[in-house]
């Protein structure tokens, strides 16, 4: 057993950290939060120029040919800077959906376009909680998906729909007839979302058979967990450094146990999440049969660590942390958004239990 990334992988990670610190400091996330529409596409162009979207796409699809371990480390670094990009929609979900369910022809067409950044996918899966579902009738989509992340940069939408023949993913071009895109406000203003309205919209079905959405979510959950852990790490560093500077009652607040214990606890949660994420990265890389359990473990653990870290970051900063101009809001809002982005805690707790059951049944069989 060797439960660590290789030296080459760590070097790649340092290189990415250096690149992102240089061109995407937190100010850029703040600019997006403040409503600068050009900033998202500028950032994405830079990520494309650095070759990030191509990371885990195979070379014969014009990708960089790295594996998931490298993609996980990239995600960790994107998380540290809260980089406002469509990586989750287009890479963690979109590319994985094409790899899992696309036909050979579709892979040959889409994967190179996704690697080069020419195709940006937005992944539409969520609906109103009252049961009003998008339907597929005579090959046309009707209804509403909301909220849908990364619509602003998407060249096409991958829409999940339940049909009589099981789940389907329908690829819809941005300019499709009958598609209306309406921006919608969400917690995190640095992560644009929209409502997609379908009125008899035709698209291309991904693959032919039934699509199991959860299999795509499992893979995306591990990658997103790395972003969440990267952000947790950055939030903890900010909190520690501020606590050392800020004085109250004649000494730095970092010298009070109330503050020390709060932050030490976050360190413990972060290490726990990172340990689950290591296992997830490995399970993703080798496509281990424990992937559903590994994904649920990584997602639940990372979500909790980031949630606590971002909430306590504001607490440590005090009143300043509650102001719009402070970076604290970026962490807090991103944390809640990522917690919802791939389904709730309750959903993943059930997925974890199902995953364990499944493995135990296989062991018996």
């Amino acid at each position: 057993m060797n439960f660590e990334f290789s030296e080459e992988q760590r070097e790649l990670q340092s290189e990415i950290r250096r690149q992102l610190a240089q061109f995407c400091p937190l100010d850029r996330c703040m600019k997006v939060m403040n409503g600068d529409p050009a900033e998202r596409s500028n950032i994405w162009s830079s990520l494309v120029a650095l070759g990030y979207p191509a990371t885990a796409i195979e070379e014969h699809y014009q990708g960089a040919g790295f594996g998931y371990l490298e993609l996980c480390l990239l995600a960790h670094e994107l998380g540290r800077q809260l980089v406002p990009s469509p990586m989750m929609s287009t890479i963690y979900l979109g590319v994985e959906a094409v790899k899992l369910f696309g036909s050979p022809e579709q892979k040959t067409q889409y994967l190179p376009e996704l690697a080069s950044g020419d195709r940006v996918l937005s992944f539409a899966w969520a609906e109103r909680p009252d049961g009003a579902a998008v339907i597929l009738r005579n090959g046309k989509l009707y209804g509403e998906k909301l909220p849908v992340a990364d619509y602003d940069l998407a060249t096409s939408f991958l829409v999940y729909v339940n049909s009589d023949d099981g789940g389907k993913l329908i690829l819809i071009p941005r300019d499709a007839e009958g598609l209306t895109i309406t921006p919608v406000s969400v917690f995190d203003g640095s992560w644009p979302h929209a409502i997609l309205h379908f009125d008899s919209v035709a698209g291309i079905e991904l693959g032919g058979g039934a699509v199991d959405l959860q299999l795509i979510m499992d893979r995306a959950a591990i990658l997103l967990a790395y972003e969440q852990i990267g952000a947790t790490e950055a939030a903890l560093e900010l909190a520690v450094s501020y606590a050392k500077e800020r004085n109250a009652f004649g000494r730095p607040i970092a010298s009070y146990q109330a503050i020390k214990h709060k932050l030490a606890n976050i360190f413990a949660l972060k290490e726990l999440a990172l340990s689950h994420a290591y296992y997830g990265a490995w399970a993703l890389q080798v496509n281990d049969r424990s992937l559903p359990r590994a994904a649920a473990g990584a997602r639940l653990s990372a979500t909790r660590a980031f949630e606590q870290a971002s909430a306590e970051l504001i607490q440590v900063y005090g009143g300043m942390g509650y102001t719009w101009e402070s970076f604290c809001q970026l962490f807090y809002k991103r944390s809640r958004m990522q917690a919802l982005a791939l389904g709730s805690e309750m959903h993943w707790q059930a997925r974890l239990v199902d995953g364990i059951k499944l493995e135990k049944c296989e062991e018996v069989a």
Partner: protein
Amino acid sequence: MDFSDSQEEAVFRAEVKDWIAENVSVFASVDFSTLPEKDEVALSRQWIASKAKAGYAAMRLQKAYGGMNATAMQSVIYAQEESKYPTPTNYFDITLGMVVPTLLTFASEEQKATLIPRVLAGENIWCQLFSEPSAGSDLAALRTRAVKDGDDWLISGQKVWTTRGHLADYGILLTRSNPELPKHKGLTFFFVDMTSPGIEVRPIKQIDGGAEFNEVYFTDVRIPDAQRLGEVGSGWQVAMTTLLFERQAAGEQSLGLIDFEDMWETFGELQIDGSVALSNPAVQAKLADWYLIKEGLRYFGYRQLTAIAAGITPGPEMSIGKYLEARGAQVAACFATDAMGLYGAIVDPALALCKGRHQSAVLQSPGIRIAGGTDEILLNTIAERVLGMPSEYRTDKTTPFRDL
């Protein structure tokens, strides 16, 4: 990154598996949940001796001392395989995990050659005599006096929370040899024969009804200077080394309260309001919480093992393990008994689900949250030594001990 066994590890695992399967058969008919302590101690002695013959009792020691010069990973593989069978409580855990490495570092060749084989033969159990009534978290506040008397030392004072003190043949002992110096500087470390005149061991009854620890009283106990470990006045450094060995047992530790399997098994058997507990969202949430801690710490341990294999000694970040697990076990065990309804109050292992392990954990976890570093001390350690936050405000670090 590769989570599976390497080829060498797989070969080693197969060897170990065979040996264990063949040798644990003696325990097949034993019911450990009702076995009296003295019978279990006898079985533990027998098991250590039989493991020692094959090199498995203290695998990481060099062959000359009865080990097999194994890697940390190999000792984890052994522990994983052994844990699949019921075996007696290991009454040699402190002896092998902390005492033997301390002896190897600080004792004379002659002492090592005499003392270590007796441990591996299952003859000698050791205890650790560190804590005192007014020196727990603040260990360096200890008052047990060591006064030089010719070639010997005379020891007087009281130790407390001495695990297995009533079973121990020897102990490692931290004393104050010079109260004129500041608290950390006037300490000296010894080993002591527990049958020496002047030692009195009294059991302490715990809230779970057991009596694993003791008070140990010393009244003019004579210890030859040859039994001193480390220099006079450097007892604190020796004690810190002992505690480091505890940490190096990375990845091998479980607190022994409840496992994830215990929770899984319990909820698999249980019905809540007429339906299967495992499909109840509140149960799923608590089960997930306990999974995140237990399985996460297992992976955390594997990260440490990989570091050890690369020659890196695990640091104070190891403290997260006991902190998370002890608290988590208390919450998990309380929830498990809650889900059983009033039946969950029954502690009789013959009646209780999962042989009463949840009920035991409810009663034992408060102790585990204190033993070997309280939650608060562990959090201080992480904050100060990992996150670089300021140390606690101390008034007593430079003052001579007698003036405190």
